[in-house]
Each structure stands twice: as C-alpha cells, then as structure tokens.
C-alpha cells in the first residue's frame, strides 16, 4: 500500500472572523500534498474570511492553523510566504510591469538581506513561467495581456515562491469558458506534481472537474468537508445556496459533471 502524502495544511478547530467576532467556527481539516480542495459557499458564508485566515492575513479568532507541521502564528512573514503561495483574483494589478518582473516578486520572501533579486531568482521565475507554458509572455507588459493570461502570470508568481500550498481566490472569476478550463487544467497538473491546491469557486462544476475534496459552507455556519461527490450533493448544494440544484453526469460518468440551479417558478 502506498504511503499517503504528508499533510501540508492542517486546521484544528479554527474560528475566523473580524475584530474578534467569529463568522465561522470549529473548522477542522487536512490538506495533503497533491490534493485539490475546493471551497464553496454562498456570498457572505465566510469563504473569503476562512481563506484570509489560512493565509495569515487575518488573525484566527480561535484554533490553530498549521502549515508544513508548524503553527502559522509562529512563522515569520517570509517563512509563511515560502509555504503558502497566494493567487489573488485578477483585476487590481498595476499596469506597466513586465511579466517576468511580476513573477520575480514571488522571490521576494527568499531574498533575505539582498535588496533585489539575482540571476538565480530570474531562473526560478522563468522556470515557473515554463511550467505554465507561458514562457513567451516573459517580456510583455502585464497591461497588454488578456484576463486568462494575467491569471496564469499570478499563478506563476505564486509558484516562484516554491510553496507547499497554492491558495487561489476564485481563479476562474472573470474568465471566458476556454480560459476557465485552461486554468483548471493547470491546477490539476500542478497537483499532479505534488503541490497542494486550495481554491474558492462559485461553480460546483469546477470542484467536480478537478477537486479531490470539497468544503461546503452552509449559511448557518456549519460545513461539510470530504470527497467531492460526498460533499456536493444536490440536497446540500441546494441548502447552501438556497435554490434547487440538479447534478448531471455526462457521457456515462466520463464527461464533465454538470451542475445547475433550477430557475425559481414565476410569481403569480
């Protein structure tokens, strides 16, 4: 029997929220290297809050977050950045920066006392671009790229941090159908290389497509976590989003699993 990969991210009884008031509490879960965890829930359910807490951008109200076997609050900013790679939503980056320089920013945590990145950092940055098949964008300006390309550049930047866990905040928001599925495929490939991936999404189909596990937040603050098909049932999704949901496998289970909400009946 194969030894299961190491746990790289562990949440124990985590409570998270703002100004000491918990929005969400009692969250426990483990993510192993090579796994993809999809985070789902309605707007305001606490996805982003949980996400920010795991990244250490928001102090946990209770419980512990462990990254690479060490509690998050004992890690310095630099150590965190070498464990957790954050991929924000596309849309707020300043224009005018060259793609290679943006990816090089991923090396900042590894600079130590050096003021600027050196040739070895450039090599790591180019390698990250290569890994996502976007090496030919290196010399372009970020402002010239399409949304999908920019999203991949931000993934490359996070990869240049050489993190154990890649955290993506709605990586497919604002992308067209083709770019959406390309970004998902890229996450699948990264996980196959042993990176643990955590992403938030509004589309259960993404979890069915590439997720190994899913965490579904309910409006009342409860949650379920486990294998995608066990967690994302029509009933639980319906409860989470407050609508009726249909889940349909295609091509006898070999094609993509479709998931859609039923339009509420018209008012009479």
């Amino acid at each position: 029997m194969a030894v299961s990969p190491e746990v790289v991210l562990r949440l124990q009884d985590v409570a998270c929220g703002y100004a000491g008031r918990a929005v969400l509490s009692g969250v426990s879960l483990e993510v192993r290297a090579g796994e993809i965890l999809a985070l789902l829930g309605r707007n305001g359910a606490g996805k982003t809050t949980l996400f920010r807490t795991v990244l250490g951008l928001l102090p946990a109200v209770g419980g512990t977050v462990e990254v690479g076997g060490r509690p998050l609050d004992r890690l310095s900013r630099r150590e965190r950045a070498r464990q957790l790679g954050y991929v924000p939503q596309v849309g707020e980056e300043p224009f005018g920066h060259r793609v290679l320089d943006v990816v090089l920013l991923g090396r900042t945590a590894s600079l130590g006392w050096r003021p600027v990145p050196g040739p070895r950092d450039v090599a790591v940055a180019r390698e990250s671009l290569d890994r996502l098949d976007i090496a030919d964008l290196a010399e372009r300006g970020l402002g010239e790229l399409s949304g999908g390309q920019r999203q991949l550049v931000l993934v490359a930047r996070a990869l240049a941090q050489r993190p154990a866990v890649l955290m993506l905040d709605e990586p497919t928001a604002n992308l067209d159908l083709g770019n959406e599925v390309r970004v998902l495929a890229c996450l699948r490939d990264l996980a196959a290389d042993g990176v643990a991936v955590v992403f938030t999404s509004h589309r259960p189909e993404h979890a069915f497509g590439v997720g190994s596990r899913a965490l579904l937040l309910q409006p009342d603050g409860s949650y379920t976590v486990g294998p995608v098909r066990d967690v994302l049932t029509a009933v639980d999704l319906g409860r989470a989003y407050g609508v009726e949901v249909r889940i349909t496998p295609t091509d006898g289970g070999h094609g993509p699993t479709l998931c859609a909400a039923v339009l509420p009946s018209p008012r009479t």
Partner: protein
Amino acid sequence: MTLAEPTRQAPGRDRRTRRVVTVTVVLSVALVVGALLAATLGRYPLSVPAIVTTLADPSAHPGDAQVLFEVRLVRIAAAALIGAALALAGAAFQAVFRNPMVSPDVLGASGGAGTGASLALLLGLGVAGIQTLAFVGGLGAVLLALLVDRLIDRRGSVLTLILTGLVVSSTCSALISLIKYVGDPENRLPQITFWLLGGLSSVRPSDVVLLGGSLLVGGAVLIALRWRLTALSFGDEQATALGVDVRLVRLTTIVAATLLTAVAVSVSGVVGWVGLIIPHLARILVGSDNRVVVPVAAIAGALFLLGVDTVSRAVSAIEIPLGILTALLGAPVFLYLLALGRRRGWL
C-alpha cells in the same frame, strides 16, 4: 495547453537593458557637462579651460579658485543634491502610496518646513535658526500626520494617510498666513515671502555637506527598499502574502523620504513640482521597474534642478526665485505627462 498567442518575438531583455544603460549614461554625462557649463555662468567670467585649469591646480589662479570653489560649485552641488533628493523622495512616495499624483510634500513636509522657517524669520533668527526650525517643522508635520492617521485608522489605509497629510498641510498654510499677518510688513514679511518662494542664493558650503549626508543616508535606504516598493504596488494584501513586512517598509520609506525632503526644503525653501514630475519622466524613459526608476529619477532630478537653478541666476541681473521657475516649468510638463499617461493607459 497554452494561453500565449503567437505574438511578436520576445522584444528582448537586451533592448531593455540597452535602453536603461543609454538613459543612465546620457543623463550622467549631461549632469557633468551641465555642471561644467553652469560653473562658467555668472557675473565673474570663468571659461571652461580656466575651470579645468583651476580644478587641476587651485593655486594657479587664486581669484578663479575662490569663485569656483566658494561660490559656483557650492551652488551647483546644492542644486543637484536637492534635485536628486526631491526626485528620490517623490519616486518613493508615489510607490508607497500607489498614487502617481503624489509629491514628496504630500504628508506636509513643505508646509511644516515653511511654518518653521516663517517663525524663525518672524523671530529674527539667523540662517542656522531658519534651517533648524524649517527642518524640525517639516519633520514634525509628517510625524503629526502619521500620528493622527494612526489614531484615526488603525488598519493603516493609504487613503486616510493622504487625507491626514492634506489636513496637516492646510493647517500649516493657515499658520504661515498667520505669521505673515503679524509680521512687520517693511522687513519680515518680504523675507518670509522670499523664503517661501525658494532659492539657493544664500547657500553655504556647510549646506552642501548637510545635503550630501542626508542624500547618502536617505538615498541608501530608498535604493535598498526599491524592490519591496514594487511589491507594495500590488496592494498590502498581496505584498504581505509575498513575504513583505508592509508596515515596516512603508514607515521606513516615509521616514527616509521625509528626511530627504525636510533637509532639502530647509536649505532651499519650497521648491515644488520636482518630486512630482521627475519620477514620471524617469518612468517614461525606462519603464515602471523601481529597480531602475529610483536611481534614474535621482540623476534626472539633479540634472533638472541644476538646469533650472542656473537659469534662475544667470538669465537676468536679478535672480528669479527657484520655486517660481519650477512651477512655471512644472505645470505644462505635468499636463503633457498627464495627456501622455491617459493615452498610454497608465493613468
């Protein structure tokens, strides 16, 4: 899978590097040549050969040497150092506030310095007193802005800080007006007005030492932090996730840039626009990479203020105040940059 459209051949790092090197060399050479030419201009005639001779052997013509070393070079050095300091501070502030419209006195450095200097003039203090109070006032105004910001907004947003700076600046102008109002209109009032217009006519060798020292310290800090400033341009959250201590970098940058501004303003009076337009000019020349923008802005700032100061003292018998010239030149240049920026989409 590939998202990359087949586009033009990688425009090449070499072309970029070549451009940066060309710009740096051209600006540096222009600065040296400009300094040499500026040294020839003035009431006492000095030719380029005479300057070269004097530089090689100061004892050859004691008269030339006295004018060159005690007057011309002091002023040239002061103009270049102040230009470099203001441009560096401007580039740093624009990066830290993620706002290209910000100038080094955004947190009240100039207003505070003006208040301090006006007070010193009102009290009839000497040059040393004016400079000291101007420096203390400039630094004090920025510290006040930082403190008030800390009290109002504990999360430390950039917008609150800019607004607190604005409030401190306006309060300073009110105080300056008050000092002018109570000042003796025969004597003190013209002095205050003249100081506020900015100028280098009374600059002393010790000022150059002071300016050089602050540029060495403040400049070194800003040069060391310039990569982290690029990370800050992506927002506090992303910068933090990249491993940058956002608050520390921001505070250190503000302190270093304020030191540069306060020292410069205490020597020259209020010289506006340099810190606003020169960083933009640097970005147009070499792109938005702070690794090159910050040093290039320093050289360009030195060249610019040297040029303007030379015009201010050589173009007519009566010296034109430096602040007036930088404003007259700065306003149209700024409008041009604004138009260019809108067209190219970075504003």
